[in-house]
């Protein structure tokens, strides 16, 4: 057992470091609160695109992808090494995770060679951004309950309906979409998968204001939008299978703790006075810190185990769900605990006045999203129980019933 880089990995890490040192500035304790994880405005978007362009030019944009598609042809471990190193730098994120982590990999599995040639490289360079049009008002956890219709018309499909919670749709160029093509079939059987140009006629994107006040996700309406059959991914009726490819990648792509971490709380507690002593000396604070440290260390080390499995040629299974299940809740809990420690001042979100640029306060309103997006806590527990432990599936009332005969609620 060791955590050491192989000689090749060590060389790669040095290359990555050299690249980052030249093109980005390291995170400092004072910049810690200002993690640039979300795209708030045009300036953020421009910064994210510029950074992506530099990564692509240096060959770090997609380390495991094949060279002929613009990737590096490297190993999963190298990708992890890159991520580890980049995490120490203050770079703008929040624009490409979904596209490069989920959408383009799905395209790569089901697209035609000329489509890959056309779309993959610009996505890698950050010139074109992709979004995931899966969820609908009546289909979230139960994705296969979606209603957006696609009807064949000559060489095209005509799309009508609505998607919701589409992160980044307001700045995206392309999207992947699951639609219902056969409402008479059982619900998982009547789906078909496409990609489309977000500038297509009939697509309307309306940002949704989130609890934080920002608008990172959207409603997307489709009125007689035409998608060429060329842009179908997978067979007609195989949309569910194709979606699973996306969702498998989602589990690998999301899951890192984007909320405040144990180290942030240590920093806060060190500088904070509680009952006339540093909060770090307080027994209740120490207890919490230890719990969260053990948990986050457990998650980090579990990922190392997954990486080891990868490097030994095994495929990581649904065990990877642990990461998001634990980290999302922990981020939320740390934020709440930190705000509580601040007493009345915990309510103050002024970035000049509040410790660490009100990072914890912001997190109170960001963290809940991570417990919902990409498989809610409850869904992840179901997955672990059924696919890892082999417990029986829920009793279902929606099996063996045509989609259009299923009961629906008022919401």
């Amino acid at each position, binding site marked *: *057992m*060791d*955590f*050491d*880089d192989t000689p090749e*990995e060590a060389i790669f890490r040095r290359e990555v470091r050299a690249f980052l040192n030249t093109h980005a500035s390291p995170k400092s*304790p004072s910049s810690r609160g200002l993690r640039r994880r979300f795209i708030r405005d045009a300036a953020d978007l421009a910064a994210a695109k510029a950074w992506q362009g530099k990564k692509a030019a240096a060959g770090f944009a997609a380390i495991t992808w094949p060279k002929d598609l613009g990737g590096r042809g490297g190993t999963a*471990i190298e990708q*992890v090494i890159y991520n580890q190193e980049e995490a120490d730098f203050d770079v703008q994120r929040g624009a490409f995770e979904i596209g490069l982590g989920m959408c383009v990999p799905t395209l790569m599995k089901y697209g035609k060679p000329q489509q890959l040639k056309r779309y993959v490289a610009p996505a890698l360079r950050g010139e074109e951004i992709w979004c995931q049009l899966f969820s609908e008002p009546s289909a979230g956890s139960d994705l296969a309950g979606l209603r957006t219709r696609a009807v064949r018309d000559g060489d095209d499909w005509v799309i009508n309906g609505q998607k919701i919670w589409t992160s980044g749709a307001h700045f995206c160029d392309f999207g992947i979409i699951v639609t219902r093509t056969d409402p008479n079939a059982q619900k998982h059987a009547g789906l078909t998968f496409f990609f489309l140009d977000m500038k297509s006629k009939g697509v309307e994107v309306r940002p949704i204001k989130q609890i934080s006040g920002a608008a990172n996700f959207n409603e997307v309406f489709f009125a007689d939008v035409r998608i060429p059959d060329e842009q179908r991914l997978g067979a007609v009726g195989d949309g569910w299978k194709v979606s699973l490819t996306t969702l498998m990648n989602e589990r690998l792509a999301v899951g890192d703790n984007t909320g405040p971490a*144990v*180290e942030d709380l*240590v*920093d806060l507690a*060190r500088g904070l006075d509680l009952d006339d002593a540093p909060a*770090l000396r307080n027994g209740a604070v*120490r*207890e919490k*810190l*230890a*719990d969260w*440290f*053990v*948990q986050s*260390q*457990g*998650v*980090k*080390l*579990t990922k*190392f*185990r997954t*990486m*080891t*499995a990868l*490097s*030994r040629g095994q495929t990581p299974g649904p*065990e990877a769900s*642990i990461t998001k*299940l*634990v980290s999302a809740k922990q981020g939320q809990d740390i934020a709440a605990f930190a705000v509580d420690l601040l007493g009345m001042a915990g309510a103050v979100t002024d970035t000049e006045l509040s410790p660490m640029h009100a990072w914890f306060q912001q997190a109170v309103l960001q963290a809940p999203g991570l417990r919902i997006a990409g498989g809610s806590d*409850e869904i*992840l*527990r*179901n997955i*672990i*129980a*059924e696919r*890892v*432990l*082999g*417990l*029986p*599936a*829920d*009793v279902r009332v929606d099996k063996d019933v045509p989609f259009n005969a299923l009961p629906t609620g008022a919401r």
Partner: protein
Amino acid sequence: MNFDFSDDMKLLREEARRFLAERSSSKQVRLVLDGKTDFDRALWQSMAELGWLGIAVPTDFGGSDLGYEALCILAEEVGRACASVPFSSSVYLATEALVLAGTPEQKRAWLPKLVSGKAIATFALAEGAGNPSARKIKCVERDGRLSGTKWPVADGAMADFAVVVAQSADGTPSLYLVDLTASGVTRAPLQTLDPARPHFKLTFDSVPAERLSLDGRGWDNIVKFIERAAIVMAFEQLGGADACLASATAYAKERYAFGRPIGSFQAIKHKLADMYVGNELARSNAYWGAWALTKNAAELPLAAASARVSATQAYDFAAKESLQTHGGMGMTWETDCHLFVRRSTILSGALGTTSFWKDRIVTSLEMRNAP
């Protein structure tokens, strides 16, 4: 990055698991639980023959010299089987103390006997309630003679000698090797929550004691010694936690209520998913400990404390919730759930409780993140 056991180690684990499933079934554990015998002697002898009692002992002294990873793996399987043997006391506490701090004569005198199962030893730290601390140690050594009382001491009656923590004449706590068959030693059995692992009160009245010389002197070095054992104990706890998860999962698939397996109810599923998550986090932290132990890494204190807290939390949750999953059956003497509730409880308290280890975690973090 190579953060998993090697194929050889995994093979050892498979062998150990198969062997213990057969040789340390709950029927055998219950012989000790019910007071029919003081520990599973036949199992202990077989473990000696397999080379397990000297798994990390140099071959010069008859050991198998397979290293700490192998020791951790065996501890995990002993924990899974809830075995009634003095594995912690004798193998990863007393034997380790000798390997680390014994003089060549002490090693020659005892290690071959410990490895072959001819001798058993234990570790005497606690003096009543509370976490280990220098101030708590009232046992004293003067002119090579040790006096005081230790309780509870696991396996105190079957052990030939004990490694005892006592204050030396210069006021620093040290480890002493004490022959328990010497006159002046009284061993009184204690009733405990886990009769399958007998505990005793040991009284020393001016008993000959030889000092073991750890690398340095004083309490910090004793804590360093305890840290190493805590990592191995985390594996023992992890094995137990996994056994609880396996038994709860199996029961949830078989037991029907309201016309369906109880494992199809989300309240049960989510509980078992949480158990799985807790065990996996504990496993990862334990592996970190095994790595630190093998490499004698600078992070050993933090890794040991993390392994220990994580394992204690996982085992505690798994033992309780496995019983809960079994419903009324879980409350019966006949069902095995209580064996694990008992074992998880006594292991949490051995070698410092969670509060002790949590404090050490934060102390490490304070130093690590110091501005």
